[in-house]
């Protein structure tokens, strides 16, 4: 059985020719760009197969209830229904999860959040599926939901899950706990629930092997091998019976790191013996994936009268929702980034990630550090005001440098140009746009198309945010990556399981191979589980980890090539190097093209790239738990209508520590896109739940920034190649989201002279 291809482009990356010229450092265009622009690139939701069925999922209407009875007989009576599955039909492990396996494939005893999966159907048409789901009768005993994270901590609410209501508690205690003042500033900061809101909705096509002896799943995901492990366990199959092929991914931002429809699609395909496609709609997507953790953070900074930080106290409460997902790792990221990119040797931090009957929380771009940054940057502005410094000066006085330490005791060994980032951002030109906008155009006023603001009332503010973000996975996890490079007749074929979500890994693969090997043509093989893991496309890690794997495999191939050429020409391999597209003898006259040198031979090498081992934190939160760090600075300019509570973000200026920009155009794209999500969190994005019920699971009511909401972005790429990073390049995806949000909020505070402690900032927060 094969997947139907529409048009002539394969859409997936199989056979994609990365044939455009361009080496490391060039702004090479995407190899998949033309198919994407022509609509012929196949996303997971575009896949079909002969005789495929549609799958759909029954979801709980209640945030917390005991399931008394499920009667699926009504669904079976509908023509066109081919399968109806509940928990009783899961042949293997009944639960899954990224860190702890605490989430049921289908709820059977209790539902713990609104939208939890309870059953799945397969039928001949999406409408048949909808009618079948409506015909399933579920009798519930509705229970009062746990929605207040503090009640999970204080133990006043009975456990809503056998694993208890606390997912993780972590303290950090460092240095002299008696330090107090002389300057003390404190605040409590809250962040609402942000949704990743990728455009390409969850979708997968499952193809059963003959006789049900295995399954092939084409899916939009972030981590093929982790999906396979969890799916195989639930199916009761060995891993090798489950093949995962990357379907085209329409954005991810963390929301595809957890299992959503994968197991359901495979179960339906195996039960019916036919291909099954599941495609969520937007409302189901909002319920069907994890979100950024809502979080409340209290911080108290003790500082000298010169503004230098002496000690930080903090308490983090993160709402993990109904299932654990990555909550324990998100918590560790949050608490270990308490100080931000500033020196601090004395700290007392208490962090909680708890279970509630809200939507499950997990990975989203910035992964815990977004939350920490909103608090520490609010504190830096309070500190500046308390000691009479401006926001830039207080940050410069505390700016972290290479060799400084986190409050975990970990030394920052990476390039850490924090002061330079702040200075370069400050040097970027402020907007020329006058307060209230150019040309008296009402579209440029806060509220834009609403045309409600009065130009005379508009006030402008400027605010700062500076961030630190860990790169790669932490706490002793070996998130290695694997790549295989095969060169024959001048063409390099690169194989990896690295998920391309839009970030452009497939672009730099060609750049790496051309630079290291001197080949002109690079072919990217199918992205699937037929090679070792690449780890997840998350944590700003794929350029470093999978880029490093591709570079490592290319270097192995190059060594073999040099040995081959040296033997033919009676030279030493060490004399040879790649110059452009030629192999040259640095001590003699030999020069031949790589194409000629590889004619008629095949060199095939695989490389596994591991980063140095990290440690678990101890009870006092001490340990070298992170792999590497990147830094960023943001300055925001906003116009505010204080009477209407409306904000227009006019400009974001940023300098980012990128190590080395392997593809400057791609880096700019990551920075602008990450800032858009940071601006969204600052002023508009929140998935609301009241008593556990989701209130705005549509794009009409959950607002993401449009063309009219996005400010001008001015960028300075700070390139200080990191000696610890392959090719000197740091990951660039997350830092833009980390401190753009606090910069915008600081600018609003500056404009209206009012303390704002919650994001997104609502009109009522400004007006009240």
């Amino acid at each position, binding site marked *: 059985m094969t997947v139907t291809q529409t048009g002539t482009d394969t859409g997936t990356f199989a056979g994609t020719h990365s044939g455009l010229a361009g080496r490391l450092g060039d702004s090479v265009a995407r190899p998949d760009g033309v198919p994407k622009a022509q609509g*012929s690139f196949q996303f997971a939701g575009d896949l079909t197969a002969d005789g495929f069925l549609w799958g759909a999922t029954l979801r709980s209407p209640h945030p917390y209830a005991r399931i008394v009875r499920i009667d699926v007989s009504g669904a079976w009576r509908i023509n066109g229904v081919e399968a109806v599955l509940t928990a009783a039909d899961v042949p293997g492990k009944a639960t899954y999860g990224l860190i702890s396996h605490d989430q049921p494939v289908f709820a059977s005893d209790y539902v713990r959040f609104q939208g939890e999966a309870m059953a799945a159907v397969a039928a001949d048409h999406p409408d048949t599926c909808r009618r079948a789901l409506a015909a399933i009768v579920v009798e519930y005993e509705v229970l009062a939901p746990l929605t207040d994270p503090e009640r999970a901590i204080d133990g006043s609410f009975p456990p809503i899950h056998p694993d208890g209501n606390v997912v993780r508690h972590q303290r950090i205690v460092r240095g002299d706990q008696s330090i107090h003042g002389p300057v003390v500033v404190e605040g409590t900061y809250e962040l609402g629930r942000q949704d990743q809101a990728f455009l390409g909705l969850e979708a997968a096509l499952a193809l059963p092997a003959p006789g049900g002896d295995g399954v092939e799943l084409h899916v939009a995901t972030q981590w093929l091998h982790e999906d396979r492990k969890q799916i195989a366990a639930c199916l009761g199959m060995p891993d090798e019976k489950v093949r995962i092929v990357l379907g085209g991914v329409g954005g991810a931002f963390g929301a595809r790191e957890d299992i959503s429809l994968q197991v359901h699609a495979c179960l339906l395909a195996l039960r019916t013996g036919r291909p099954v496609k599941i495609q969520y709609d937007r409302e189901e997507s909002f319920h069907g994936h994890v979100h950024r953790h809502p979080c409340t953070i209290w911080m108290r900074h003790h500082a000298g009268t010169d503004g230098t930080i002496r000690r930080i106290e903090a308490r983090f409460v993160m709402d993990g929702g109904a299932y654990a997902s990555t909550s324990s790792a998100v918590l560790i990221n949050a608490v270990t980034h308490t100080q931000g990119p500033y020196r601090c040797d004395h700290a007392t931090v208490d962090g909680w990630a708890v279970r509630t009957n809200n939507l499950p929380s997990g990975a989203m771009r910035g992964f815990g550090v977004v939350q920490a940054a909103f608090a520490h940057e609010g504190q830096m502005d309070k500190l500046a005001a308390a000691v009479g410094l401006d926001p830039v000066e207080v940050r410069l006085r505390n700016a972290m440098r290479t060799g400084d330490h986190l409050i975990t005791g970990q030394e920052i060994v990476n390039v850490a140009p924090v002061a330079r980032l702040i200075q370069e951002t400050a040097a970027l030109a402020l907007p020329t746009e006058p307060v209230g906008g150019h040309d008296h155009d009402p579209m440029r006023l806060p509220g834009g198309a609403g045309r409600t603001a009065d130009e005379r009332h508009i006030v402008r503010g400027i605010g700062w945010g500076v961030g630190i973000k860990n790169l790669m996975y932490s706490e002793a996890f070996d998130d290695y990556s694997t790549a295989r490079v095969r060169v024959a007749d001048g063409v390099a074929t690169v194989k990896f399981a690295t998920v391309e979500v839009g970030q452009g890994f497939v672009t730099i693969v060609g750049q790496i191979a051309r630079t290291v090997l001197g080949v002109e043509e690079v072919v990217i093989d199918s992205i699937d589980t037929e090679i070792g893991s690449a780890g997840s496309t998350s944590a700003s890690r794929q350029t470093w980890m999978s880029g490093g794997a591709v570079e490592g495999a290319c270097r192995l191939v190059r060594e073999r090539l040099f040995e081959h050429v040296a033997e033919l020409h009676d030279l030493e391999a060490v004399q040879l190097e790649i110059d452009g597209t030629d192999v040259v003898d640095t001590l003699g006259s030999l020069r031949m093209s790589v194409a000629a040198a590889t004619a008629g031979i095949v060199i095939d090498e695989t490389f596994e790239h591991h980063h140095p081992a990290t440690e678990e934190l101890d009870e006092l939160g001490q340990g070298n738990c992170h792999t590497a760090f990147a830094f960023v600075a943001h300055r925001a300019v906003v116009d505010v209508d204080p009477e209407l509570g409306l904000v227009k973000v006019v400009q974001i200026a940023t300098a980012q520590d990128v190590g080395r920009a392997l593809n400057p155009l791609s880096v700019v794209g990551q920075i*602008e896109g990450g800032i858009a999500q940071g601006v969204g969190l600052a002023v508009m994005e929140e998935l609301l739940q009241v008593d556990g019920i989701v209130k705005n699971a549509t794009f009409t009511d959950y607002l993401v920034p449009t063309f009219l909401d996005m400010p001008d972005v001015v960028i300075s790429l700070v390139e200080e190649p990191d000696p610890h990073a392959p090719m000197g390049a740091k990951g660039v995806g997350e830092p833009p989201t980390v401190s753009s949000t606090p910069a915008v909020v600081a600018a609003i505070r500056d404009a209206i002279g009012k303390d704002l402690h919650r994001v997104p900032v609502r009109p009522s927060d400004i007006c009240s």
Partner: protein
Amino acid sequence: MSEFYVLHVNGAAREVRDAAAGESLLFVLRERLGLMGSKGACEQGECGSCSVLLDDQLVCGCLVLAAGAVGQRIVTIEGVAPLGAPSDVQQAFVDAGAVQCGFCTPGLIMATHSLLERSPAPSEMEIREELSGNVCRCTGYGRIIDAVQRVAVARRGAQ
């Protein structure tokens, strides 16, 4: 419930058989005619991923009843340019870095062609306003605006 009608898509008459009466143009284009270039991301007219031209008007395919489009000229992303021979707008999006995940791209290509037909030299504000019905979650829009401006400049130069 079962319907038969003919749609004029990208210059060809396409028969639609056995469709349910309430199917959207987006659903019929994708699931019955196999034209997968138009995308669905909200199905309520908020994101523009399904943008197509209906008698030269830019519409959201998810908001149009397929059966109601009988007799109108429908142009989808597949009708913009032959595969492998991208239009100036499509090529500019690729060259300018306006494409990341690419899910919003077909809709934005349709909207940009429509905009530049009506307004060959749009201001930045006009680009922002005209394209504000198309949501992109990856790019932050900067490179898309650049792509549109590149096409406008190139077309003027070619005149």
